[in-house]
């Protein structure tokens, strides 16, 4: 006799806690999409763990009815790595922000990516410190006026996607909080990838940095300011789909498709398995010169960290058998006192 598995819905992943983000915060949209996507992934709540650091986004685990750890600032990737090594059977999500992942936790972030631990890390990028009320972050733009930079930011911002490419992440994607369909699709793709899946989400902080991503959110502008990456398809964008991206030597350029001089076949075709130099070039596409890519930059399968670690363990066990402590203690030079 077989028992039918219960069909889970978004509500099954809602916790009993009141959500305490500011009204209008982009985090609500990401939470809603996550709850929508989780039942579709097919992993039951008890097999799912959300781990976060510190910041507005890091309250996320309290709002999903799975297992979860709200850890300390910047360290969620390290906590998650330990959990995943101990329990490869679990589905692990790391929720972080631009300050948490790229400033105080920058070290753990790059090491998580280069190790390729099989988990998903979602970076809510709002280009500001929200929870501490409005200081600039490592993704704030030059000249940005914040509470800690009354004369404007002088740091050069970090580009999260470029950092991920540099760390040789095996799955790299970007989405936008308000583009719910695209966001849900991207989260699902991240879950499906084996290895570290990194997703940057443009997220609006309507209190301290309102409108930072309005160009990418606004339906009136977003077709011209962003370009959706689709595997195997030519890179075309624009409200009228009349502009494209072409590779010219070692540079990308925007070309006009209207007059027919440039054909679709001349454009760059997006390839999720392309070499990292090309992925890096895509990551450098910034407005106003370029539309900013949205979608999956890279998706390649290589050995995950826990596969490698447990592979070594299995190899030794296969060769030597499970260790016998008594034998170990009695090995080598011993002597007996009667």
């Amino acid at each position, binding site marked *: 006799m077989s028992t039918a598995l219960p069909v889970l819905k978004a509500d099954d992943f809602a916790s009993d806690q009141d959500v305490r983000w500011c009204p209008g915060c982009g985090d609500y949209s990401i939470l809603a999409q996550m709850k929508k996507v989780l039942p579709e992934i097919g992993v039951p709540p008890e097999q799912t763990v959300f781990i976060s650091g510190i910041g507005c986004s890091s309250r996320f685990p309290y709002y999903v009815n799975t*297992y979860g750890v709200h850890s*300390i600032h910047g360290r969620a990737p*390290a906590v998650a790595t*330990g959990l995943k*090594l101990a329990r490869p059977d679990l589905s692990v999500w790391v929720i972080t922000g631009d300050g948490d992942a790229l400033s105080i936790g920058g070290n753990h972030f790059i090491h998580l990516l280069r190790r390729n631990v099989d988990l998903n890390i979602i970076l809510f990028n709002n280009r500001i410190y929200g929870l501490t009320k409005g200081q600039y972050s490592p993704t704030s733009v030059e000249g940005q006026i914040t509470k800690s930079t009354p004369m404007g930011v002088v740091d050069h911002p970090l580009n999260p996607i470029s950092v991920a490419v540099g760390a040789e992440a095996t799955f790299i994607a970007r989405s936008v909080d308000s583009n719910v369909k695209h966001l849900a699709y991207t989260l699902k793709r991240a879950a499906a990838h084996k290895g570290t899946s990194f997703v940057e989400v443009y997220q609006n902080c309507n209190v301290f940095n309102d409108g930072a991503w309005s160009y990418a959110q606004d339906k009136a502008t977003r077709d011209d300011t962003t370009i959706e990456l689709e595997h195997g398809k030519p890179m075309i964008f624009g409200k009228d789909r009349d502009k494209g991206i072409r590779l010219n030597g070692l540079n990308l350029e925007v070309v006009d498709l209207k007059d027919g001089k440039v054909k679709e076949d001349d454009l760059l075709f997006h390839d999720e398995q392309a070499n990292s130099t090309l992925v890096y070039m895509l990551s450098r596409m910034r407005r106003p010169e370029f539309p900013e890519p949205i979608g999956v930059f890279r998706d390649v399968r290589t050995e995950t960290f826990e596969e490698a670690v447990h592979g070594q363990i299995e190899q030794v066990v296969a060769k030597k058998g499970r260790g016998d402590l008594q034998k170990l203690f009695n090995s080598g030079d011993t002597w007996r*006192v009667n």
Partner: protein
Amino acid sequence: MRRTECATTNLRPLMTTEAISSKPVHSVSGVTVRLVGDSGDGMQLLGTQLTNTSALSGNDVATFPDFPAEIRAPRGTRAGVSGFQVQFASHEVHTPGDSLDALVAMNPAALVTNLADLIKGGLLIVNEDSFEDKDLKLAKLKTNPLEEPAMENYRLIKVPMTRLTKEAVAEFGLSVKEADRCKNFFAMGLVYWLYGRNMDATLRFIHGKFGDGKSVIAQANEKALRAGWAFGETIEGIGHSYRIEPAKLAPGTYRNIMGNQALAWGLLAAAQRSGKDMFYGTYPITPASDILHELAKFKNFGVCTFQAEDEIAAVCSAIGAAYGGQMAVTTSSGPGIALKAEAMGLALMLELPMLIIDVQRGGPSTGLPTKTEQADLLQVMFGRNGEAPLPVLAARSPADCFEIVQEAWMIATQLMLPVIVLSDGYIANGAEPWAIPDMSKLSPIKVEHPSENNNPDGPFKPYARNELLARPWAIPGTPGLMHRVGGLEKEDGTGNISYDPDNHQKMVNIRAQKVANAAKLLPPQQVIGPQSGDLLVISWGGTYGTCLTAVQQAQAEGHSVALAHIRYMNPFPSNLGEVISRYKNVLIPELNMGQLRMLIRNRYLVDAIGFNKVKGKPFTVRELHEKIVEHCKSPSRQEAHAK
């Protein structure tokens, strides 16, 4: 009748080396020998071999390796001197010895930096080939110390080791450098002859390390060892050798063990006894790294070692593994523990069991990486933000490391708390005989993970508590028990975030009481010596052996003194205050500036006297004994106050 026999039947001796000296043999009860040379001269290897061989011959042994932080400091300089001291005896020894009966010095820098510790009339063996002008210059010496009149105080044996080794290994066609490298085995051969040591174990080591019987390097080293032995037998300057009878240790099978090795093996035992796989997250740091090297070898014992990107990631990965239900461990030394502080606070808020091990070294900051000190006690007690107490245990000797981590894991799992274990550089690198336990006789460490919801009226309560105030260790993968934990203050029971003032007070009280409850799981404080009297010496950690030896000496001289060695630094044993009250005075020797003394004074309002030293070196028995005798005679603290 007790007798010792070599039980290494699994290792066939390469050839019989039961060489008997034809010279007279003097019987002595114990010897302290120090071997000193360049950090690249293999002094640590030589010392370890001498220790193992002495232990195998049934002596009790205690060692003190002392080496610079630099891997290869400039050759021949004083900064590059590396030493290994071992005491082996026919009686119990608890220290590597104060002063040296014999000193083997491979160069002038090694000689002048160590000679002060050699007793008058002591045996001084030097490699006279390394006392050329250039060698003296490297040691910043204007004259040759071997020609000083002070040499008359010692039995100086000048051995042309470099030349004799070269001649001995000539047949193997080694390069000059390779041949020169064999001279430490020549020195070892001489020392073995001198103390009647059997060469078998070292020969096995040589052939194991440098290849089988066919390896030229192995053959050359064996030849050098035998040449050294033969030199002792023939040279006229040495009239006799020594014999040290086996010590009367408790019956059992023994092996020689180093502190970090015992600690690693203790962790394996703790995992097995609790039916857990172990997750070990760490970052390399002196003097704790050998624990990682040791555990990394045992992947088939259910151990996953993770060398993290930094100290913080190491402890955080352990927290993740603990949440996942494994036996989680992180190790470090003082500087790394400082980095882990915030995460240790998280672990105590999450109320997850794990072990945090601090192998202390000289501080502050980078301090003295390869030297010993006990100056992290207050750091591990108080080095966290907020009201953040944790249980703290301190190992007292290399072999004790095996026991203490198992005890710590028992406390951690029973109370659902991270537990800190203190070791130190002296214990970590020191060695002593260890009675191998029968694993089948060790009781299981009981660990439970709930599978049922403990709340009939709603969601699972992760912070419900038992009589010890421990919360349930519910692990991911368990249906129906989904819960979130975090560093924010939480409501007792539900674990929901709570900023309620009364709840915070309650939770702070509960977390403190949980630590205090550890005392219920632990034995009362014992004393060695009279149950009351003039002086109570309170020791902790790695100074145990020296304190015990000094106290026993004073007791033998008729002084009214006892030793209370504290193993449980937090919470203190529940009877400690009462024990202290039975003595007129309290003396607390520590390799710090008075950290335990501060805790004892604060807790028991007792005017304890400190004896403190921070020189990167252990106490000598002599200086401790002097202090003990002095304070046995002082007026009691009450009388002193009355005046």
